């Protein structure tokens, strides 16, 4: 295992030290609970926004804490959801009297830990808590009898849009309803060219031949839905865009916020090349791109590969997108 770390058990805690050293002007860290806070949280009268999940997806979520986005991010171990204590501490801390929204990615562990935290918050405090569970990964068949779709790329866009809404003073009901609408409008699909190594595991999660790739991966270094022959960027873009377009709710004439996201080990030059391919496919499908992101936004450690996320965007979404944001991972207008 080749990583710039000390003890694998300390990776998350030590990365937090670096986060605070780098962004102490804007962020503060609760090391006991491994929570990254917006420095001026709680903001009186503003809905508090909390997300969290396993680490290893940076800049998600800690990189999205700051004005216009999250109030707190709870950091689990690498690829392991945070525990209820962390989530409860953050919930209590960021409440400014207007309630708190939990932004949860749909994984069994994340959902259960957030649920327990919400139960504890209800029992132990007066904080009003709502949740949105992001489930946008079209690689996974949805059904009542399964764990449902995973939460992936739409989470980034949702945190931005909902962050802007909360910043503008919308109520918890409104913010939660918006979060549901963003989730409903978002679809993602990813592929991997290589695996990645969880520090505590010490070796790659899976092995992949020189001429193979994994299609339909999530963000936890896990194998995908199927292993397919290594494809050109052109074919790869089609493999990602097609299943999104055949899924609801996009059609000719619609406009989207589009993200071509790197999984962590793919260089930016390839991501831009992929974005060109995705752009062409959407043009062919008559879909406009209102705004876009190209880069590493929700990663899977050092995995090579990428994902495509499209969120159908009306004027409200575009306005929320354009609102100022000032976080380590996304910044404009500030």
């Amino acid at each position, binding site marked *: 295992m080749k990583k710039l770390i000390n003890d694998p058990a300390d990776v998350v805690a030590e990365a937090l030290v670096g986060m605070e050293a780098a962004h102490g002007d804007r962020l503060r860290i609760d090391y006991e609970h491994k929570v990254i806070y917006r420095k001026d949280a709680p903001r009186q009268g503003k809905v508090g926004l909390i997300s969290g999940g396993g680490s290893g997806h940076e800049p998600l979520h800690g990189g999205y804490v700051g004005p216009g986005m999250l109030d707190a991010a709870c950091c*689990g171990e690498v690829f392991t*959801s945070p525990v209820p204590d962390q989530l409860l501490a953050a919930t209590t801390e960021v409440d400014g009297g207007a309630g708190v929204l939990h932004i949860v990615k749909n994984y*069994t*562990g994340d959902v*259960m830990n957030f649920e327990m935290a919400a139960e504890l918050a209800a029992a132990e405090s007066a904080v009003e808590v709502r949740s949105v569970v992001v489930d946008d990964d079209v690689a996974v068949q949805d059904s009542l009898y399964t*764990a449902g779709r995973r939460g992936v790329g739409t989470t980034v866009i949702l945190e931005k849009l909902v962050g802007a809404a909360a910043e503008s003073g919308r109520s918890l009901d409104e913010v939660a309803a918006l979060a549901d609408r963003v989730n409903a409008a978002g679809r993602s699909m990813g592929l991997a060219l290589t695996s990645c190594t969880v520090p505590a*595991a010490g070796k790659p999660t899976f092995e992949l031949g020189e001429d193979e790739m994994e299609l339909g991966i999530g963000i936890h270094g896990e*194998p995908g839905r199927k292993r397919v022959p290594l494809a050109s960027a052109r074919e790869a873009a089609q493999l990602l865009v097609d299943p999104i377009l055949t899924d609801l709710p996009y059609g000719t004439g619609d406009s989207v916020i589009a993200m071509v996201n790197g999984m962590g080990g793919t260089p930016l030059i390839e991501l831009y090349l992929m974005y060109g391919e995705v752009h062409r496919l959407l043009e062919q499908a008559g879909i406009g791109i209102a705004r876009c992101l190209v880069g590493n936004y929700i990663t899977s450690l050092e995995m090579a590969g990428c994902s495509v996320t499209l969120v159908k965007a009306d004027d409200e979404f575009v306005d929320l997108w354009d609102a100022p944001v000032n976080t380590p991972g996304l910044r404009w207008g500030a």
Partner: protein
Amino acid sequence: MGDTVDLDQFSDWMRRYAGVIHDNAPLLTELDSAIGDADHGSNMDRGMTAVVDALDVGEFTSPADLFKKVGMTLVSSVGGASGPLYGTFFLRFGGKLGAGPVDAEGLGVALHAGVDGIVQRGKAAVGDKTMLDAWVPAVEAYDAAASSGVGAALTAAAEAAAQGRDSATPLVAHRGRASYLGERSAGHQDPGATSTVLLLETAAETLG
């Protein structure tokens, strides 16, 4: 039979299980690599290490107390799917235990309560290829053997758990991370069912 399990035995169970988990962490992570995210071994190891630390510093007057601590510690230190699930198991399990030693029947009631907790928390069913595929046949086998005493019942439970774990191996997962793999999950042994078998085997050794 009228044999019972006392606080020291329960405590011994947890300590022994911590050792078993530590030794098997690489195996559990290996299994989780194939159909999950390669952390079940480190998750359980972190959790049971925390449990032993808590037992070292705590004073427990009853099994109920002990397992409340175990459950809370797992919930607070593991994360992922297994933290809430094992945590809930022990919280519910302990909730059915009183202050004194417990007999085979009482232990059965507690096991049922624990497994019901897993079902409520995780909303999975037998056949979904999760730890429940080990737990559910285990409590059934326990019930059937309970009249022969704690040791025999736990041995039967551990054996049934192992069979359940193996019978789930060919299945396609419907819950947990393995479900994302669809058909590709078939043929792989479930990590959570594996840690459950280890828990029950250790129980048979320490509580019987």
